[in-house]
C-alpha cells in the first residue's frame, strides 16, 4: 500500500512539533526515520495512524484520504508499535498478541485469528513463554510482544517507534532482519523511527532525517549518510565508511562539535 504524507503540521498548544512534513512510501518500501531527541519522530508516526490528529495536512493510503476510513479499518491497515509500555493490569503474552486481532473480531475469536497468533508467536520465538504475564518480561521481550501484536493485525503499513531500542545486539539483528524479510515478502510498507543510524542504514530503502519538525534530507542511505548532513542534524563530527562488508554505509560518530 502506498502511503503519502502531505504537508503535515502538528502542534501541542503553541509548541510546534511538525512543520509541513511531506514524503511518500511506496508499497513494500522501508523508510527509516532518524533525528535527534524531540525532532518529532514519534509525533509523526502517531499522526500517520491518527492517534494524534494533525492540525494541517493529509495522509493518503493508496490515494484515499485516511479521514474517510473508520477507526477499525485503520486498525486493519496500519500496525503501530509504541516505544515502550507499562501495564497496571497485565495480560499474558498470548492475550496481548491476540489483541492484535481486535480490528477483525467483534466478540468471538475465530480459528483463523488463533492460527495467525500461534504462527506469529512461533516466528517471534515467544511460543514457549506465551502464558507469562507482560509485566514480568524483560524490556526486550516486551518489545517483541508489541511487535508481534502489530504483526497480528496483518497490516499493510507498519509503524515502529524505536522497535529495537531495548534489545541486545543479537536480538536487534534478529528482530530487524525478521521484520525486514517478512515485510519484503508481503509488500508491507514500513516506517520505523530509530536512534541507531547504522541499523537505519542497514534495514531500510530510504532514510529521512528529521530536524526540528522538518524533513532535512531524505534518500537512500548511500545518498544521505554524509558527514555534512549528520553534522547539520545532530551537531556531531562523524565519519562515514562507504565500502563495508554489509554493503551499506556505516556511520562512526567522532565527537560533538
Amino acid at each position, binding site marked *: *500500500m502506498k502511503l503519502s504524507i502531505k504537508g503535515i503540521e502538528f502542534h501541542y498548544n503553541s509548541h510546534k512539533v511538525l512543520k509541513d512534513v511531506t514524503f511518500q512510501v511506496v*508499497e513494500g518500501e522501508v523508510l527509516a526515520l532518524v533525528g535527534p531527541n524531540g525532532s518529532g519522530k514519534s509525533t509523526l508516526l*502517531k499522526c500517520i*495512524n491518527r*492517534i494524534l490528529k494533525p492540525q494541517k495536512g493529509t495522509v493518503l493510503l493508496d490515494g484515499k484520504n485516511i479521514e474517510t476510513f*473508520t*477507526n*477499525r*479499518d*485503520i*486498525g*486493519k491497515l*496500519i*500496525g*503501530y508499535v*509504541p516505544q515502550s*509500555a507499562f*501495564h*497496571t*493490569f*497485565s*495480560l*499474558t503474552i*498470548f*492475550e496481548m498478541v491476540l*489483541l*492484535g486481532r*481486535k*480490528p477483525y*473480531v*467483534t*466478540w468471538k475469536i475465530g480459528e483463523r485469528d*488463533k492460527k*495467525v497468533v*500461534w*504462527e*506469529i*508467536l*512461533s*516466528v517471534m520465538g515467544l*511460543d*514457549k513463554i*506465551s*502464558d507469562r*504475564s507482560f*509485566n514480568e518480561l524483560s524490556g526486550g521481550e516486551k518489545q517483541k510482544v*508489541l511487535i508481534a*501484536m*502489530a*504483526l497480528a*493485525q*496483518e*497490516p*499493510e503499513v507498519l509503524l515502529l517507534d524505536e522497535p529495537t531500542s531495548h534489545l541486545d545486539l543479537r536480538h536487534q539483528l534478529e528482530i530487524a532482519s525478521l521484520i525486514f524479510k*517478512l*515485510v519484503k*515478502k*508481503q*509488500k*508491507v510498507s514500513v516506517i520505523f523511527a530509530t536512534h541507531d543510524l547504522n541499523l537505519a542504514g542497514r534495514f531500510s530503502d530510504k532514510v529521512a532525517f528529521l530536524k526540528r519538525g522538518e524533513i532535512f534530507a531524505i534518500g537512500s542511505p548511500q545518498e544521505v549518510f554524509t558527514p555534512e548532513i549528520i553534522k547539520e542534524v545532530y551537531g556531531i563530527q562523524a565519519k562515514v565508511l562507504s565500502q563495508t562488508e554489509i554493503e551499506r554505509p556505516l556511520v562512526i560518530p567522532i565527537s560533538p562539535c
Partner: protein
Amino acid sequence: MTLRIMEKNVIATESEIEVKDIYEKLTARKLAFIFGGIAGIIVLSILACSVGAAHISFAEVAKVIFAKLTGLNFAVRKVADTVVWQVRFPRVLLAIVAGAGLAISGAGIQGITRNPLASPFTMGISAGAALGAAVAIVLGWSIVGMGKFFIAGNSFLFALFSAFLVLGVSKLRGTTEETLILAGIAIMYIITAIVSFLQFIAGKEKLQGLIHWLFGSLANANWDKLFFVSIFVFLGSFFLFRYSWDLNAMISGEEVAKGLGVNTERVKNVVLILCSFITAGVICFTGIIGFVCLMSPHIARMYIGADHRFLLPSSCIVGAFLLLGADTLGRTLLSSSEIPVGIIVAFLGGPFFLYLLLTKQRGF
C-alpha cells in the same frame, strides 16, 4: 495485499501445537474457575436459605425452591415455604445480583482508568447515593415524590447526577484517567461534607435511620427490590460484556488501543455510564456497601488474569460470593440482632484480600 505470515514455511508446527496446548490449558483453567464459582454460589445459596432463626433442612429448602420454580407440589411445612420463599431466597438472590453488579462495575472502572484504586465509589457514585438518601430521610424531600421509592429513587438519581458531574468536570480538561479519578475524589469529598452536615442537623430518629441506611444492608430484601436491581445489573452487564475486547485494549495503553481502532473516548464514556447505572441501581436499594466493587476484580485477577472476557464474569462471581457469604454471616453471627452486611464484608473481606495479596503469585 495483507501480511500473510501463514504462507511461510519457516514455522515449526510442533511449536504451534505447543502454544495451542498452553492456551487451551489456560482457558480451561479460567472456565473451571467460573463454573466452579457458580457451583459454589449455588451451594452457598442453599446453605444461606437453610440457616437462621428458624432452621430449615437443605432438603426442605431445595423442595420449596424446586416446587416454586416448576409449579409442582411437594409436602413442605407452611413455615418453611414462607421463610424460604418470602424472606431468605429473595435476600440470597439480591446478595448475588448486587454483589455481581458492584463487582463488574469495579472491574469496568478499573479497566478504563487503569488504576487499581479506582472504583465506582471514587467516581462519586456512592457519595451521591448517600446524599440522595440523606435528603430523603432528613429533609423528607425526594425528586420522585412520595411513594414506594421515596428513598431509593432519590438516591439513584443523586448517584447518577454526581457521576455525570464527575464526568463533566473531567471532560473540561479532557478525560484522562487522572482527571477522572481526581475530579471524582474531589466531588466525593464535597458531597460527603453535605451528607455530614445533614447528619449534623438531623433529629435523633432520622439520624438513626440515615446511619442505618449508610451501613448498607440487605435486611429488607423482597422480590420487588430484586426485580429492579436485576434490571440494572443484567442490562448493564450485558452491554459491559460487549466491551471486553475494548477494555483489554484500554489496559494495554491508550495509544495501543487507538492504534487497534478503539475509540478510546467513547469507550471511557460508555463504560463509565454503564458502571454508574449498575452501581446506582444496586446501592440505592441496599445502602452503601463498599469493598465489593473495589476488591472483587482484584481477587478475580489473581486467579484468572486481566483478560476482560473472563475477568468480567469472574469478578461477578467473586462479588456475589463475597456479598452472599458476608450477608449470611451477618444475619447468623449474633442471635439477638443482625450485623449490616456492609460492615461484615469490609471486616472479613479486608483480611481475606490481604491473605491473597501475600500468598498468590500472580500480581495485578
